């Protein structure tokens, strides 16, 4: 089986408000798939349907060959879930929490190995309540891995992290990927999606508005930007031919004896593409 998750025309409404309006995507086994979108776009609703927490109104969903709406035990044996907000028992130690969860699975991983994998080896005997925010998230991840899942859901895994903690969390996700795990990651951080995901789906107002590798998404808008300041005012020009436009601009400026202040040529980043995609109002014009 090459696709770990298959979602087709997924729909869900809350009190008449459509949260998902026909979402379709596939996640291949072994890839890191990023679901990217602003708050309220439908990321968490989608993931919670896949995790078996919510019922869908319409559409077909298959997770590791199972229908998550029935939440069969066979499926729960093979997934690991890291929720956005969840507190594990504050009075147990790191190792104890792992051992407790390990007891729920038929074939758990070695507890000490998992504790070391998430970088809590030295905190193994520390009570959960004494951990820092970043360490608690590592614990969350460790507990999600203790059943040796094939598929891991990470719902906004680095929200609220400082930069150093984010980098180490990213390293962790990369190491999971190298273990062959399939990962579905939701995030509203673009750099996170760009750094971690093999493929990204951008979701906005309950619809997927774009999907592909980060490079493909950036490639969708090929325009380069030339920015400078004229008489103290910022000028931004978008062009498919940056070389020619830049040549014209600089020639004109040199001839006129003017300096183009703060002159720069930029390729669009994923962030620009993303902002364009999620903000339909924004003008892409000249």
């Amino acid at each position, binding site marked *: 089986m090459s696709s770990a998750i298959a979602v087709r025309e997924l729909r869900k409404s809350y009190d008449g408000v459509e949260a998902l309006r026909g979402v379709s995507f596939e996640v291949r086994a072994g890839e890191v798939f990023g679901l990217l979108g602003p708050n309220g776009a439908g990321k968490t609703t989608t993931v919670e349907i896949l*995790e*078996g*927490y919510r019922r869908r109104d319409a559409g077909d969903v298959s997770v590791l060959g199972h229908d998550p709406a029935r*939440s069969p*035990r066979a499926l*729960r*044996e093979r*997934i690991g*879930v890291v*929720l956005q*907000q*969840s*507190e*594990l*028992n504050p*009075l*147990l130690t790191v190792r*104890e929490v792992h051992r*407790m*969860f390990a*007891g*729920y*699975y*038929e074939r758990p991983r070695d507890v000490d190995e998992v504790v070391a994998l998430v970088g809590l080896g030295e905190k193994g005997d520390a009570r959960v309540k004494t951990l820092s925010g970043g360490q608690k998230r590592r614990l969350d991840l460790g*507990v999600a891995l203790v*059943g040796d899942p094939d598929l891991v859901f990470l719902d906004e895994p680095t929200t609220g992290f400082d930069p150093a903690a984010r980098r180490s969390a990213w390293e962790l996700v990369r190491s999971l990927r190298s273990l062959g795990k399939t990962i579905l990651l939701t995030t509203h951080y673009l750099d996170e999606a760009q750094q971690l995901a093999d493929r990204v789906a951008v979701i906005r107002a309950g619809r997927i508005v774009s999907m592909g590798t980060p490079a493909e998404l950036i490639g969708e808008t090929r325009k380069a930007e030339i920015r400078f300041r004229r008489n103290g005012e910022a000028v931004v020009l978008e062009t498919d031919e940056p070389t020619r436009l830049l040549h014209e601009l600089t020639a004109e400026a040199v001839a006129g004896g003017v300096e183009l202040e703060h002159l720069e040529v930029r390729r669009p980043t994923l962030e620009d593409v993303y902002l364009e995609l999620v903000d339909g109002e924004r003008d892409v014009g000249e």
Partner: protein
Amino acid sequence: MSVLLHQLVFEQRIFWRSREAAVFIFIFPLLLYALLGALYSDEIEIDGTLAPSSDALLAGLFGYGAANTAFAGLAILLVVRREAGFLKRLRSTPLPAATYIGAVLVSTFVVFALQSVALLALGAFVYDASMPENVVGFAGSVVLGTACFAGLGIGAASLVRSAEGVSAVVNVIVLPMAFLSGSFGPTRDYPAFLEAVGDVLPLTYFLDIVYGVYLDGDSLFADWTALAVVAAWGLAGLAVAVRRFSWMPRER
């Protein structure tokens, strides 16, 4: 079964490590017995007959302990874990819901059983209280009390929305109930309407059963009316839970 035992071990570890739980749930009824036992020295009237105050209070605080441990303790535990997102997280693991609830219930029973033993020991050594006339019936009432008040506790947990408010809510229920049911001393001098309220409370009927097995050596099943009322309350709590219990956090 082995998973239930596995979870039970962790539930016990969590309970005894929590100073709040250990003091509020385990120590508090013992403390009240020590206190009230020193205050009352005469006999206390129970259903028209006089009993030594040490015995009447032991039975009363045993009943309060059941409500405090199984109703208040369980409701607080479930709401706090639900709002922390812990229950939600558990649902994504292969641990069956029934196994988890089962382990939590057995853990509650263990705590209350130990508390009952401690209460009897305190009564025997300090206040010269009687030991149960019907030991098996008394042990049965530990199970009955846990079951009835745990049913109500799960029902209450299904209705309370916030982790911050749950301790207050359950204590506003348990403490007046204990007073009105006579856990802390005779209700003879209470106004009629308070007595009327007392007459529908589950703790009143549970205490009737406890007085029977503890003081008179009656069978646990001697008073069918009381047994039916206690069972009805427990089932009513359970019915609320079946309709309203949620593994997902309510707030946010």
